[in-house]
């Protein structure tokens, strides 16, 4: 099978993942801190041995614990771009980029020509003679990208490549990645929805060392099934169990009704923050009411995001978007007890993910 395939378990890091990526596609890996995203990259790059598993790339087996195969990192054809540029401080920019071609056995002059080509491709040709210490964060990350590409990897792994850059350098680098990664096989770990939208074809959400959601970017963001993807997309997600058509019951006893065919069993209700209104007194109806406390108030333009406290079973709090005037009338303060009322017409129900 061509493309990238990873099936691996690492008990020490609490990771058990299974994922395939066709040639020429970019996969974005999302997830909270410590979910196992970097472990996933280390397993692919050969910097970590799984307890059990198999990694293959373009028909080549890189890791297979069943047959004892483990290809060393230098022979994998897997490039890595980390959060920090990690340019070798004792080499010039050109020598850094020529490092990969030199290791592949190219002559010095030929390697430097390759380096110039890639520096040109990332718009850093004028930096060739500088030392890494003389570069800004954005420049260094461009050079690091050129260095990774010059080694001609079959797959490029990017571990939060923009998170250490400042607000002006990050958008430039994001545009560059968008151009450079088109048609390449790459895995990008990120926290930022913009990165996903800019470069990724598909997205995988990792939580507690498992892939909990996987699909085309548009689908996952429009109809998230995991709390993390929902939060990233700015959508509320309440999980519970469906026992009668059109209603789910949460573990703490709230009932949320909505539209959508859902088989009995674990299910989620998905709704936009605009579908939620806030009341101070208990509403007459019991359904679609979530009793909570104000956790956070955040102002964005004329809108105020009201985030409720975490639910009793640890789900992230529901978020309501209100007009600033409405918040003033309610006189909300953090910690105050409130009732979220969700408009049933705007709630979509769907079956929850079953964890593998």
């Amino acid at each position: 099978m061509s493309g990238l395939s990873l099936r691996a378990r690492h008990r020490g890091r609490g990771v058990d993942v299974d994922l395939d990526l066709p040639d020429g596609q970019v996969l974005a890996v999302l997830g909270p801190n410590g979910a196992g995203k970097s472990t996933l990259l280390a397993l692919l790059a050969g910097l970590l041995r799984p307890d059990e598993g198999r990694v293959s790339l373009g028909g080549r087996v890189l890791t297979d614990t069943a047959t004892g195969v483990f290809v060393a990192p230098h022979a994998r054809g897997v490039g890595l771009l980390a959060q920090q540029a990690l340019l070798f401080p004792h080499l010039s920019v050109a020598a850094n980029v020529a490092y990969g071609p030199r290791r592949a056995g190219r002559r010095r002059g030929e390697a430097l020509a390759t380096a110039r080509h890639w520096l040109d491709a990332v718009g850093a040709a004028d930096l060739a003679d500088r030392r890494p210490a003389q570069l800004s964060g954005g420049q260094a990350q461009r050079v690091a990208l050129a260095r990774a590409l010059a080694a001609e990897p079959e797959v490029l792994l990017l571990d939060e490549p923009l998170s250490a850059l400042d607000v002006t350098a990050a958008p430039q680098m994001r545009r560059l990645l968008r151009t450079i990664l088109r048609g390449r096989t790459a895995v990008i770990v990120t926290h930022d929805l913009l990165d996903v939208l800019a470069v990724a074809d598909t997205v995988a959400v990792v939580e507690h060392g498992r892939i909990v959601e996987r699909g085309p970017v548009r689908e996952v963001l429009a109809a998230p099934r995991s709390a993390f993807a929902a939060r990233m997309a700015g959508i509320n997600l309440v999980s519970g169990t469906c026992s009668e058509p059109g209603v789910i019951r949460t573990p703490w006893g709230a009932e949320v009704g909505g539209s959508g065919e859902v088989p009995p069993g674990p299910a989620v209700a998905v709704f936009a923050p605009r579908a939620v209104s806030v009341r101070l007194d208990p509403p007459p109806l019991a359904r679609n009411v979530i009793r909570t406390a104000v956790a956070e108030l955040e102002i964005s333009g004329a809108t105020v995001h009201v985030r409720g406290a975490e639910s009793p079973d640890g789900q992230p709090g529901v978020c309501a978007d209100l007009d600033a005037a409405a918040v003033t009338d309610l006189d909300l303060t953090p910690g105050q007890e409130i009732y979220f009322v969700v408009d049933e017409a705007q709630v979509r129900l769907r079956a929850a993910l079953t964890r593998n």
Partner: protein
Amino acid sequence: MRTLRRAGAAVTAGLPAWIYLPAALGAALVTVPLAAILLRIDWAQFVPLVTSESSRAALVLSLKTAAASTLVCIALGVPMALVLARGRFPGQSVLRAFVLLPLVLPPVVGGLALLYTFGRQGLLGQYLEVLGIRIAFTTTAVVLAQSFVSLPFLVVSLEGALRSAGTRYDDVAATLGARPTTVLRTVTLPLVLPGLVSGAVLAFARSLGEFGATLTFAGSLQGVTRTLPLEIYLQRETDPAAAVALSLLLIAVAAAIVIATASRRLGGVR
């Protein structure tokens, strides 16, 4: 005591004024004895004393053996530091403790241990004797004794540098196609070069001053095993003026090495 209070200087919150007093006492403990020995020097006789045949022989032998033992320390200490900093094997912490032992061991005890290893009746010496190789009381013994006491200085210094450098650059080099040996040569060692230089300087300086282990294991034969510290000790009995003059020579050589590399050592690990 008056501290400098320059306008525009940053305020150091964690440095109370009284701390200058014990610090000055510490500096005095090091510098006053050096001044005392300088005051005892008979400058009129200085040049003849330090250029006498026995003095020159001792100085040349000291420089040669210290250089040789520094090379031994680099050849053996670099792999040891790498294995201790990066490797994972059972008994690693025990090995680290044993490597540090010569730092706290009285050198005379080290010399005895070497004698029971390489001496004619020693653990390895008896087999070497069969092969016609004698080590004890030769120049080789001097180099061995110096290497024994100096090795921990290089290993500790380099291991610290390797740990603070981390393995992230090595990982990047590997993903760019570099084999482990190539990573070591092109990335790991260049990055810890300041730590290696500082470790080698410490090892050289320690070798230059080595006395106890050398005397026990190598004896005191002029031109063969009598290094500068041994010569100084010997002269002290018969000609204190010569001992003082030679001491100054040793101080001068040690100071020259330290000053020549001070800028790099202060730079530390990048």
